[in-house]
């Protein structure tokens, strides 16, 4: 390895240490007191349901079950909790009161997961996670039973990452469903999941997933450390975490990848990367992320290598177009007219005769118009979407030209740029290119091609200086790492590369056996 991982002097423990919390307040012995306390603490919230019941027809042994309506599975509560508790006859034989809970857990409740709880914090944590709490009078403890449920979106095709070939499953808002989707793809005991709760107010479940033995220990440890560092009131989406764990904040480029596709996560895990799942969002983060990763789509790995390679080259071209097209137009028409073919120059000059603005103003005006249109189109309710497309065609198109505000060539340039910025597979890198494009235009308008080249060099230096969890952003191109280079702009066929990328995998780097290239039997053996 030619680069060093940063910030890795701490001992490697590979686990998320528990935060030193304040001492937990214990439950009371008396059920009415407990219920009063509960109501007081939750402000009598109307979605919290308290169902009082008596055990074993004995008016003295009162109990209550508590759950939050909407996040629980009503049928499990009815059938396996209330029904069992009310009808069970065994409970009266219990002598010691403390054994009641054990009895309930062992014999009565026919649900998957039953845990004992002692304090209020634990109680609320389970309660709001969708568990049902059982409190029994006279016992300063409770039971939490697994009744998570409620409405959730079914697994659908991910709307932001469509692929022509490959699975149609996408992540949903449910964390457990999401981890299961990956678990189903990698059936191996080395697929490890670690859990952490983040956000003081939201108590969001966050899980990291990696393959033990493939992911670098240092990277896993770094991910755990950075997650532990987070001290924020809320985590509503993985974007919060993405911003809080980045290496470099002063950049427009994404150093953390996000995806909605379980197959993409699985592929990345197998390359030694770490996935971060956040509850209530279908977007899963993948670290470390390198530049070229944002030009890879899952289709590439499912289609033939030669096709995939040419499409990746096209994507690089598309990225360059979306970055440079307006800048090059501005530079060529205001500084370097000699490099435009004569006939084209005459046509351009004829169009520019009537144009009221300098080329750069025209370019910025049109690009801005397009960005406005795009933004409007994204947020617009579907019912008025058609209006936007009609009006949009007016402002970027023939009407703008006929009004004499812009020249027709500029419309073409803006259009090709727009198409190009949508064709980049990763939205986060496309939007970054969009932002830089304006800088490029200004550089082109001030210095011509000299300015463009200058900005490009600055951009390259910046890209080379970025790191994602210690991995150089431009790797494996710069620094060049041969074993990872078989899946960059060029994708070698699966039989072409034997090793996993060295960038993220240091041990167990052999991916497949020798001689995987298919060979047809020679004609002699065909007989």
């Amino acid at each position, binding site marked *: 390895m030619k680069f060093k991982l940063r910030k890795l002097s701490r001992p490697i423990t590979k686990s998320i240490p528990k935060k030193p919390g304040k001492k937990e307040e214990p439950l009371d012995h008396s059920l009415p007191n407990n219920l009063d306390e509960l109501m007081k603490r939750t402000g009598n919230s109307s979605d919290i349901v308290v169902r009082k019941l008596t055990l074993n027809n004995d008016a003295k042994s009162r109990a209550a079950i508590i759950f939050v309506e909407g996040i629980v599975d009503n049928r499990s509560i009815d059938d396996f909790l209330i029904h069992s508790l009310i009808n069970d006859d065994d409970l009266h034989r219990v002598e010691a009161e403390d054994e009641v809970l054990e009895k309930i857990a062992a014999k009565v409740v026919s649900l998957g997961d039953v845990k004992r709880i002692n304090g209020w914090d634990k109680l609320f944590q389970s309660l709001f996670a969708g568990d049902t709490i059982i409190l029994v009078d006279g016992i300063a403890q409770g039971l939490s039973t697994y009744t998570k449920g409620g409405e959730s979106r079914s697994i659908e095709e991910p709307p932001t990452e469509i692929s022509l070939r490959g699975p149609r499953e996408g992540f949903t808002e449910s964390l457990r469903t999401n981890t299961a989707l990956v678990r189903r793809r990698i059936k191996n005991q080395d697929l490890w999941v670690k859990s952490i709760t983040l956000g003081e107010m939201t108590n969001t479940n966050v899980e990291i997933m990696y393959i033990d033995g493939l992911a670098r220990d240092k990277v896993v440890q770094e991910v755990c450390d950075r997650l532990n560092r987070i001290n924020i009131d809320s985590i509503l989406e993985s974007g919060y975490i993405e911003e809080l764990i980045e290496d470099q904040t002063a950049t427009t480029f994404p150093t953390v990848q996000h995806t909605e596709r379980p197959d993409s996560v699985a592929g990345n895990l197998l390359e030694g990367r770490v996935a971060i799942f956040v509850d209530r969002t279908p977007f899963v983060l993948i670290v470390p992320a390198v530049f070229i990763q944002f030009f890879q789509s899952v289709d590439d790995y499912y289609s033939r290598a030669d096709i995939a390679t040419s499409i990746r080259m096209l994507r690089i071209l598309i990225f360059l177009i979306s970055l440079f097209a307006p800048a090059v137009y501005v530079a060529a*028409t*205001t*500084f370097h*007219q*000699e490099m435009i073919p*004569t006939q084209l*120059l*005459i*046509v*351009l*000059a*004829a*169009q*520019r*005769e*009537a*144009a009221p603005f*300098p*080329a750069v103003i025209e370019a910025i005006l049109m690009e801005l118009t397009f960005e406005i249109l795009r933004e409007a189109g994204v947020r617009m309710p579907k019912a008025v979407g058609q209006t936007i497309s009609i009006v949009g065609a007016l402002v970027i198109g023939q009407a703008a*030209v*006929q009004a004499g505000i812009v020249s*027709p060539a500029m419309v073409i340039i803006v259009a090709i740029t727009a198409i190009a910025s949508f064709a980049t597979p990763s939205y986060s890198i496309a939007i970054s290119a969009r932002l830089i494009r304006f800088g490029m235009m200004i550089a082109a*308008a*001030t*210095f*011509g091609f000299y300015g463009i080249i200058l900005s490009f060099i600055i951009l390259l230096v910046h890209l080379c200086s970025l790191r994602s969890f210690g991995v150089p952003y431009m790797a494996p191109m710069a620094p060049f790492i041969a074993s990872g280079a078989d899946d960059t702009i060029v994708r070698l066929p699966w039989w072409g590369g034997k090793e996993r990328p060295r960038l993220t995998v240091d041990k167990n780097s052999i991916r497949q056996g020798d001689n995987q290239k298919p060979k047809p039997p020679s004609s002699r053996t065909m007989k």
Partner: protein
Amino acid sequence: MKIGSIIILLLMNMIFLSGCWSNRELPDLALVSALGIDKAENGQYVGTIQVINPGNVAGGEGTQATGSESTPITTYTASGGNLTEVNRHVSSQVSRRPYYAHTNLLVIGEKLAREEGIAKIFDALERDPEFRTTTKAVIATNNTKAEDIISTLTTIDKIPSNKVIKTLESTEQILGQHMNVDTRDVLSKMATPDQAPIITCFSMEGDENQGKSLENIQATVPEARLQASGIAVLKDGKMIDTITEDVSKGTMWVLNKIKATAVSIDWKGETDAIVYQVTRQKTDVTADMKNTNKPKISVEVSAEGRIGEAAVPVDLSNPLLLVEFEEALGEKIKENIMSSIHKAQELKADYLGFGGAVHRADPNAWESIKGEWEDSYFPEVEVDVTVDAFVRRTGLRNEPLLSNMEN
């Protein structure tokens, strides 16, 4: 930290305060498509620039309004003691900055070329960063001034400079009597004694004043027409003569520039009865330097082509007859070439490039004779021409129609 940010601020200012240096918007440029240079009676240069009116050339949006009412070009003329002065004077007439990067035609007046030579003006053109050396050069002859070539409107190709260039290209390929020369070729040939430069001549037929008005391009037979008219021979940077017809065609043969041409031979008493269309050819010029003082040049031409016309009844399916044709064709081509060689020797101008052949054959000997090559050696040089013409096919039919009719 504070000093660092101040330095960065100052650096940023450096970028933004310098502004849009050398920024030129398209509507601020006058695109010069052709440049004509004449010599006035008082010895001053008269420069004419042909400026494109983009709106009248380009099709599409915004042009329909002004449409074909106005001319695709406008010309401006100014005079001065040197080209730079001419250019500065022109600016008093043009509303925009003349932009020479797209100038693709240079027209030199015959008077200038004959009296003063082209060396001085070529220095100015070569030195200029905008002007390109790929610009085509022509000389205006037959009492046509460079200004007339520049300002005559043409049909089909709306921009006259394009018309001239395209004519040069097509006539070089089809007729083989004119040569498409750019200023770089002229410059490089002027710089060496290996070969003398030649430049194709252009002239305007008809009324020069008619040519300047739109009516000229509204007629099926334009009053004023531009056409190629031979090749000017230069010696020591000055034009000394023009060669035309067979002589110039022979020159093209020697220079290996023939792409396609037609050769006609007499047959059975009928003049120009058989026409041979050359499809490809190759000419090798080599020098034999066994006797250093008397170089011998050999020109070997091998041509291939087809029969284009047969105006006498002949049996073209007879291979023996074709062999006879080939011999006669060879003779005819050789005649052309010899006439061109004789003319060059007479003019003492080595535009055939024999000097280059000698140079290649014996560089050491060339060093000693190159000073007096054109004047002493070249006119006396012995030239051996061999032509191998080959009839590849006879066209789409064998026997001419005439042989059927006579039977």
